[in-house]
């Protein structure tokens, strides 16, 4: 029995180390929230949270800081990118689960997922030097000539710009989150029991009938959860939009014009902030983004995906 005490001591030490590591995860998340709040405190005291969110003035030389342009850019670019990418992502998921021959399923699936593995700064550089000119020369004129002529909503889609702006950023974001949404939709579709589909086919349903009446209703929660998580991702994306958003701290009249977002403002101004209140205002923007993404993740994960897991 000699040395047994030592053995048990080792056992204890290992368990404590494992527990402490777990604690680090928990502490990290809370520390992020608390630290951001602490650093944002001077800005919160000076402007007030509500006023900061409502104020459209972002004027560093005058020490005036309002978060509205950045928050507006974040929300609008996220919504446009989701609206554009979700139908395509679901189409890809349908292709991968229902249409693609078995031999092609895996290579095409991997190709789509590699799109998600490309670093976001690459999307930014490609977006600025190759995609923005295409938007400027081919897409903007079309939008301007069609949607821009509509009554009421027309001004939203009008104007010519060098190709960088809210819309271009949203397009790049849409491509970035496309594989992510597609992968989650595909996984949700794959969870549908084959027997349900087979019985529908036996009744003479077409592939689309089966998708619409069997697969989509069954996979609905998972797909919505996936879309919401992609939304969170688009919201926090930085480098892809930093290059193409234009970094103008204004609320643009048209989505074709340059704008800014929370992440773009942070990326461009954080290292340069020279006064305490300037830096504190940037921390307040970071805190707002943290809270926004926290809410989005909580909704996506706990309202939708948890139900999927339970239903399994």
């Amino acid at each position, binding site marked *: 029995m000699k040395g047994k005490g030592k053995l048990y001591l080792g056992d204890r030490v290992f368990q404590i180390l494992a527990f402490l*590591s777990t604690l680090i*995860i928990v502490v990290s998340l809370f520390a992020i929230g608390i630290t951001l709040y602490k650093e944002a405190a001077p800005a919160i005291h000076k402007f007030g949270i509500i006023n900061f969110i409502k104020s459209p003035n972002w004027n560093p030389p005058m020490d005036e800081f309002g978060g509205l342009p950045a928050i507006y850019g974040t929300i609008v670019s996220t919504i446009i990118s989701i609206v554009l990418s979700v139908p395509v992502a679901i189409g890809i998921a349908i292709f991968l689960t229902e249409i693609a021959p078995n031999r092609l399923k895996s290579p095409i699936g991997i190709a789509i997922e*590699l799109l998600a593995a490309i670093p976001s*700064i690459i999307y930014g*550089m490609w977006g600025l030097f190759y995609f923005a000119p295409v938007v400027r020369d081919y897409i903007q004129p079309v939008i301007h000539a069609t949607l821009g002529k509509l009554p009421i909503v027309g001004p939203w889609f009008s104007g010519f710009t060098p190709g960088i702006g809210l819309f271009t950023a949203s397009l790049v974001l849409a491509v970035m989150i496309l594989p992510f949404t597609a992968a989650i939709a595909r996984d949700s579709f794959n969870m549908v029991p084959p027997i349900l589909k087979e019985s529908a086919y036996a009744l003479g349903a077409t592939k689309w009938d089966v998708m619409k009446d069997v697969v989509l209703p069954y996979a609905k929660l998972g797909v919505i959860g996936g879309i919401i998580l992609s939304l969170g991702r688009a*919201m*926090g994306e930085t480098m892809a939009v930093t290059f193409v958003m234009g970094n103008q701290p204004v609320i643009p009249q048209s989505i074709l014009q340059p704008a800014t977002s929370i992440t773009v403002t942070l990326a461009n101004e*954080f290292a340069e902030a020279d006064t305490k209140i300037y830096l504190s205002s940037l921390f307040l923007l970071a805190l707002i983004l943290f809270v926004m993404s926290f809410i989005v993740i909580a909704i996506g994960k706990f309202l939708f995906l948890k139900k999927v897991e339970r239903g399994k």
Partner: protein
Amino acid sequence: MDAFKRRKIVNNIVLIFSTFAAIFGILWLIWILGTLIYKGGSTLSWEVFVGNPPAPGDNTGGLKHAIIGQFLIVSIAVVIGVPIGILAGTFLSEYGKNSRLANIVRDISDILMSVPSIVIGTFVYAILVEPFGHFMGISGSVALAIMMLPIIVRTTDDMLNMVPGELREAAYALGATKSKVITSVVYKGAITGIITGVILAVARIGGETAPLLFTSFNNNFLTYNVFQPMASLTVTMYDYAMSPYQYWQKLAWAAAIILTFGVLALNLIGRAIAKWKFKK
């Protein structure tokens, strides 16, 4: 018969749309990779890997400083993040199991995974850059380590769960203590899965720029001192791409091609291991 025809037509439209969606998705991949090869490929040479950083306006030089910086920053992130992540994953799987506490920690770790990377950058700035008064390579590593943690916790947790309980019981029956069972039996059964998780986590953080912008910052000189501002491929790429010097812009594309193909290769290796090991 008409209703049947209409259903068939709608069906075909949807199938055609879906096929186009898949082709459309792959076209972006081809466009982006094609751009990289076209722009970066011509610049790639031995000089790019071993050359010292170019002076403004110079037409020679390379990315040695950024490659070494990137390697140091990511390596330290791995040294910090991997042990903590594996131990935490072990705790969840072997000690916590399905307890309330373990499930809460799993949720917290999932939330941490979705925190925008630039927010993690601002956090690390507040705890490691502001108090010391200057940017440091190692603070970039800490930011990346925080991003790795939840990925590694999740994969370790899942992989350990896949190790059959009989193996543990057999080891206990021989009189082994819990830590001995975990370190010499359970880890052995799950090692490939854990390594895959680590490779994918490195691929994920390797291309990150945002959290480095104001933690490790940048440095246009070669340094091995992780307590000083340090260059990374990604931040160098950002600065060079936006610079007015043509040669710097060329180097930015060379950095882009090195980084992207490095990250994609890691991804494919991780997937290949996972497939080889777990798919029958």
